[in-house]
């Protein structure tokens, strides 16, 4: 057996093992994000606990993947607030996370645990720790480059902790292997002059493994979302509604 065949065989066996370990469809309900539009994008109809999600910025850092991730996290945290606590842990490497913006997205700062890691090793360690903790409901971090072993460790940590890990990543990682159960490609759309807020095109990429990946055959499709600038509501736009040709327009 050649080296490639061995690797392929091992990968297949691993995938089968993962699928056996994954819960049967419908047994473990997902948790809604509080935004029906966003839930309709997610393969499981919401967020599955004990899994990782990748939010990939399609163009550049300003594409808004983290904004969508926070909207989803906020919904989950608010649902947890009915219980004893709901906590979002943000593991930040460069100290630029701006909590005032998170508050604008409906996430109360008192629900945020901000962890600032100086070095890359500390950051990896810190993410694993918060994923492993059952006291944290959602973990958000920025991870452009990630070693496969570290990624796997994080996935196992998320399974153990039972929270949801959200990784905001750049488009360069699309071709890399992933241990996330769902990968979402987020591209900012140029809004019409009359648009009331920010628009995104979101595509679910296939290829996740582990718990929550039981809908691996999920159809890839682009979904248009719009965040209302005034109400903070997220709505699904008809698929045919396209971006306008670029020109300069002023609002507000």
């Amino acid at each position, binding site marked *: 057996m050649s080296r490639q065949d061995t690797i392929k065989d091992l990968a297949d066996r691993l995938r089968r093992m993962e699928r056996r370990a994954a819960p049967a469809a419908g047994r473990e309900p997902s948790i809604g994000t509080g935004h029906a539009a966003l839930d309709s994008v997610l393969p499981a109809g919401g967020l599955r606990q004990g899994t990782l999600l990748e939010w990939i*910025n*399609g*163009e*550049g*850092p*300003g*594409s*808004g993947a*983290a*904004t969508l991730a926070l909207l989803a996290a906020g919904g989950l945290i608010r649902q947890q607030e009915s*219980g*004893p*606590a709901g*906590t979002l842990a943000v593991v930040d490497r*460069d100290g*630029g*996370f*701006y*909590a*005032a*913006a*998170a*508050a*604008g997205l409906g996430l*109360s*700062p*008192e*629900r*945020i*645990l*901000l*962890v*600032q*890691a100086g070095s890359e090793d*500390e950051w990896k360690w*810190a993410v694993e*720790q*918060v994923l492993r*903790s*059952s*006291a944290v409901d959602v973990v958000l971090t920025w991870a452009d480059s990630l070693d496969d072993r570290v990624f796997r460790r994080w996935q196992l940590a998320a399974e153990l902790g039972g929270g949801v890990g959200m990784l*905001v990543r750049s488009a360069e990682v699309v071709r890399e292997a992933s241990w996330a159960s769902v990968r979402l490609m987020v*591209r*900012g*759309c*140029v*809004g019409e002059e009359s648009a009331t*807020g*920010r*628009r995104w095109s979101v595509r679910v990429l296939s290829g996740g493994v582990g718990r929550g990946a039981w809908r691996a055959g999920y159809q890839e499709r682009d979904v248009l979302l719009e*965040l*209302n*600038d*005034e109400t*903070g509501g997220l709505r699904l736009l008809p698929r045919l509604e396209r971006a306008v040709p*670029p020109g*300069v*327009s*002023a*609002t507000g």
Partner: protein
Amino acid sequence: MPLAEARAVLLGPVGVPTEAGEAGEGLEVVEADEEADLRVLAEEGRRGWRFTPLVSLTPAARPGQPPAQDPRSRPESLLANITGCGHLFGDERGLATAMQQEWSGRGFAVRVAVAGSPGAAWAIAHAAHWTGQPWIPLVASEGRDELWMRRLPIEALALQPRVVRALRELDVVQVEGLLGLPLAEIKRRFGEETLWRIDRALGRWQEPLECLPMPDPVVACRTFDEPISRGDWLQQALRELVLEVACGLQRRGRVAWRLVCRVRTEASKVEPEWIEWVTGLVEPSRQAEHLWELVSLQSERRRWPEQVVQLQVSAEGVVVPERPQQTLFETGTEYETATHGGRLRRGMARLVERLSSRLGERSVSRPVLCEAVVPESAVVLVPVGRESSRESGSGAGSGAGAGAWLGPVTRPLRLLEGPRAIEVMAVVPEGPPIRFDWEGRGRRVVRYWGPERIETGWWADGGVARDYYRVETDTGEWYWLFRRRGDARWFVHGVFE
């Protein structure tokens, strides 16, 4: 003078300050850290136990009233009750001289005064500085406090600054002059608080001292026959000491808020200084493995010094546990409450302890929104460990929501540490941007919102005057730009990630 005022005065003649980095060239502004001062003072206070077991840091507030603008509350003084201790040093003057030598030898500028009350001692020690007395201990003989006090300036009474100003305007500069005024008049004009402060200074009010607690020391120490430099050996010795301290806590039925590890090297034998680090806990504990895990996480961040001759681990903040042991064997889940909320609280505390031990206390925080105009000042990060150790759990996020709600997409998720200057093309000089360069790429603006003017006075926040724009580029990305009004330069301040 408050720092903000001092800064404004110092910057004033130079010119109107603008953006950070350009303002205050050549001026180093160091913010006072009262908590750090208090920590140092507490440490020095513990050294004071050599002279008397009753050493206090800050004076007690007036019952039912916070000590507003009280000079006595500044973290700069130690108050000690030396009743019955003088004869150990010859007499009270001998004791005062020994105190002066102790702290002068440690590099502090110290004035020591002995009087019949804490207020009089504080006043005499401070007034000696204002009146230029030599740096010798001053001892007021028994019953002669008031005679001393009468000769002192009115500042010695630790009155409110506005009262001192008003009295000086009335040409009342000495305590003697103030005591000559009718009490009713003083009360009518300056309030009852002033009368209370006079009584406090003259020892007419029995001032209680909140003394530093004398701990029942839980300390483990190893002295090596030969200096050791091997990290693994030292790590093993440290582990044994931590376990020993945990056993000590178990025996006493106590838990500790922090462990202090001290290392003495051969080099520091001559000068008896310890290298010290503190491992703080969010919830007090005595669980040996847990304590060792935190200490070892912290030790990973440090390099062991060469030639270690002594290691010491002590438990501090030793308290009676909130909930004593309720079953005969409580293994692993010490004090764990049966409720889900209790488990979560404990889980969060453990997480914060681990993160703080490895990354440092300031690296684990909760954001608190503030009523600030300048975006950089709108969020304050409060270390979770510190917040929790004061009021376990419940204080989290106090002040949240203090800032005005700004809408879902008016502020960027990533605020750059300092605004970055960019090249921008605009159709009109004071108009919106139509193109800008960022990270080596030209970006065309297709939509924008603004300008949103953010401006402060020249005396505050370095004098900010900015016109902000949210811009959408032709790739669908959003950035937060501003034009500085002083010189019309453009900056990127945030990314709507």
